[in-house]
């Protein structure tokens, strides 16, 4: 996207982030900060490193594609926080850090002598993102939490699937991780603003289940006021609008059609070549369509089933009906919009020469766009340079730490 952008032009240049977290949730916050210029130091255990290195499809280099994509722009520094000397080096690093991202189980950093009180005393301006399944407080705070469980607890897994059928994964098992990374990043940036105005640091407490629960629109108010328990939505959501769902086409593909208003349904009726369906005596009104949702969905299903996906979509686009393909990743690679927006970026991995295609940074900023300057680093690739440059250690100091397996 903007591979040529120099880091100096980026808006977070000069901000140092220590990412001591694992997998996706808190690390994704650091990834976003890195795309916009922060220097992200990925602090990993000397043996094995971040579990994300082993999560997903193997790369030629021996780690995984997920790692290479999502650890973009980071520098890897190994440090064993279970050893006293590792804790000491970590404290030195925190003294020179603006933002710390962590997602250990609650109490883990405290056990190592690296709780908020200690770190805040070392660096009063420190901003600390703490991500866990259930947050730092509350009765479940010490339970292990993964996104799968968070989707369940946060109420969105219950809603995904066919009515009365088995609840399914809401599209992606790590959705809650990414959403929490986003909330965490927003919290960190607000805390950074507060610090720049007051000098005061703070921590951001983000819970996986809360991020997905927050996206359930009026689920909670409707239960509180009317006792409505929303059930699984299936492929159509017809509580407020019809037709609004997924429809199969003749070629075994799928389209999404969404008629939130009567005007949009009229456009669909025109696309179907049946404008009479949108008259006031037939299905012109949302209320009528909702009462006869099975009939309306059946009409749309029959129409879609008689056409290929391309034909159905071309007719919808011609009348400006909100419709689109259910793209799989092959569709996406062939799509003009993804190419025009440069949503797919090929980045070369210098060691193996492998070219990896990864999603470009989002969002797109006009003056200070984010960039991918490197893929995920190899384990400990930058240990020596960071210890030297940031902490001013000598080669002998570093060699000593290495012999003791602290780094």
């Amino acid at each position, binding site marked *: 996207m903007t591979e040529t952008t120099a880091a100096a032009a980026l808006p977070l240049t000069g901000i140092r982030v220590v990412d001591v977290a694992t997998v996706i949730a808190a690390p994704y916050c650091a990834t976003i900060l890195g795309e916009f210029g922060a220097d992200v130091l990925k602090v990993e255990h000397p043996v094995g490193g971040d579990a994300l290195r082993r999560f997903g499809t193997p790369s030629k280099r021996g780690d995984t594609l997920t790692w290479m994509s999502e650890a973009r722009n980071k520098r890897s520094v190994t440090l064993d926080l279970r050893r006293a000397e590792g804790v000491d080096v970590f404290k030195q690093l925190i003294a020179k850090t603006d933002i710390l991202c962590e997602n250990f189980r609650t109490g883990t950093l405290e056990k190592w002598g690296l709780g908020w009180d200690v770190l805040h005393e070392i660096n009063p301006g420190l901003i600390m993102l703490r991500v866990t399944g259930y947050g730092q407080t509350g009765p479940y705070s010490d339970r292990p939490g993964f996104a799968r469980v968070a989707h369940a607890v946060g109420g969105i897994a219950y809603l995904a699937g066919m009515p009365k059928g088995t609840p399914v994964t809401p599209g992606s098992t790590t959705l809650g991780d990414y*959403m929490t990374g986003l909330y965490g990043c927003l919290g960190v*940036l607000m805390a950074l603003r507060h610090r720049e105005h007051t000098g005061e640091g703070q921590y951001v407490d983000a819970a996986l289940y809360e991020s997905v629960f927050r996206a359930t629109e009026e689920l909670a108010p409707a239960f509180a006021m009317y006792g409505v328990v929303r059930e699984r939505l299936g492929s159509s959501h017809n509580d407020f609008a019809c037709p609004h769902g997924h429809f199969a086409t003749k070629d075994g593909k799928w389209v999404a059609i969404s008629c939130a208003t009567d005007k949009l349904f009229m456009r669909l009726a025109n696309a179907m070549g049946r404008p009479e369906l949108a008259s006031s005596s037939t299905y012109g009104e949302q209320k009528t369509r909702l009462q006869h949702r099975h009939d309306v969905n059946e009409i749309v299903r029959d129409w879609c089933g008689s056409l290929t996906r391309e034909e159905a979509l071309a007719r919808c686009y011609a009348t400006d009906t909100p419709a689109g393909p259910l793209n799989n990743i092959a569709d996406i690679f062939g799509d003009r919009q993804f190419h025009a927006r440069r949503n*797919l970026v090929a980045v070369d991995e210098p060691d193996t020469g492998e070219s990896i295609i990864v999603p470009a940074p989002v969002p797109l900023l006009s003056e200070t766009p984010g960039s991918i300057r490197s893929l995920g680093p190899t384990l400990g690739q930058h240990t020596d340079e960071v210890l030297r440059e940031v902490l001013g250690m000598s080669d002998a100091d570093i060699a000593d730490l290495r012999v003791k397996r602290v780094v």
Partner: protein
Amino acid sequence: MHEASAHAPPPLPLTGVRVIDVGNFLAGPYAASMLGEFGAEVLKVEHPIAGDPMRRFGTATKRPDATLKWLSEARNKKSVTIDLRQPDGVQLFLKLVAKSQVLIENFRPGTMEEWGLGWKELSAANPGLVMLRVSGYGQTGPYRRRSGFAHIAQAFGGLNYLAGFPGETPVLPGTVPLGDYIASLYGAIGIMIALRHQERTGRGQIIDVGIYEAVFRVLEEIAAAYGVDGRIREREGSGSFVACPHGHFRTKDDKWIAIACTTDKMFERLTVAMGQPQLASSGLYGDQRKRLAARDAVNQMVNEWVGNLLRDDVLQKCLDEEVPVGKVNSIADIFEDEHFIARGNLAHFDEPGLGDVVVPGVVPTLSATPGRITNLGPTLGNATAEVMRDLLNLSAAEVQRLRQAKII
């Protein structure tokens, strides 16, 4: 940790930032809601007669101008009516822009330009303006003019294809406007980054978010994997391709539970919880690869075990062994859950004429400057007079004229 006095509430990080939210529904306006929770003054600019259509979308209340969705998601906003289809309305809007730091819009690309409110005019009125533009497909590219609601954009971005059972109908991924929320999160992050740049350089900029690309960005390695070996990720039902057992299981009382054994260690704990530790031996299913190869058999064993127990019993046995587990909560379950209550995830408001209204609390939690909800979705135009008088310094006669001409 902070020196908050006993009298004043803690400070908020965005105090002094004025945000104009001229969007409809959620994609973009939700970014304004989050900024408002953390102290920004959010002016919701709406059409004088119709207002934001979200006022009529969703579950109705006794207030004719507010659904529950509006009450919850327009939290902390002030409503100012201006008709942008009239030249006087455009001039008024530009004056408001000159006194604001952030503008959020989600019209179809080109619409604001038609009204004389493109970036050229807006940045002339305010060179430091930070503008978030959210649309289904973004401001550029061949599809930019297509209408794009969250449902369509999620499908286009690749998420909806992945929800459901293999070979069966793709379902909605749990919450319908998920893409609106995710796009707004990216938008709010973009705004914070751009505000910081603006404070250092005086220069504003545009943040351009396509809902589809916000959704696409959270799909981990599916692009990289397709790029390397052409592998197309398909629907995975209630399970996972990378770990087993990792899914939803039905309990004896016809409820559901999620179990996520991402590693061998967690599977070992599960087998202890099941009272069958031998299953985790290396000769059997101790190794993730073996479990994935025999996933149907492994899932079947877990299904049988779970199916013989009540949900609470499965939960307790798993928790005792520290197996990652959770109830597949309905909203009724959530309202009974002590953890949701303890974390303040359900915020109660006594709303005049409506009684108790419960909305999701603020996410994330900041230790020194926690966000807050000061009011639920406003009535149409509740702050018009105040803004015209105090912010734009218009005379009472001028305000009267604008009202009569239905410009405000």
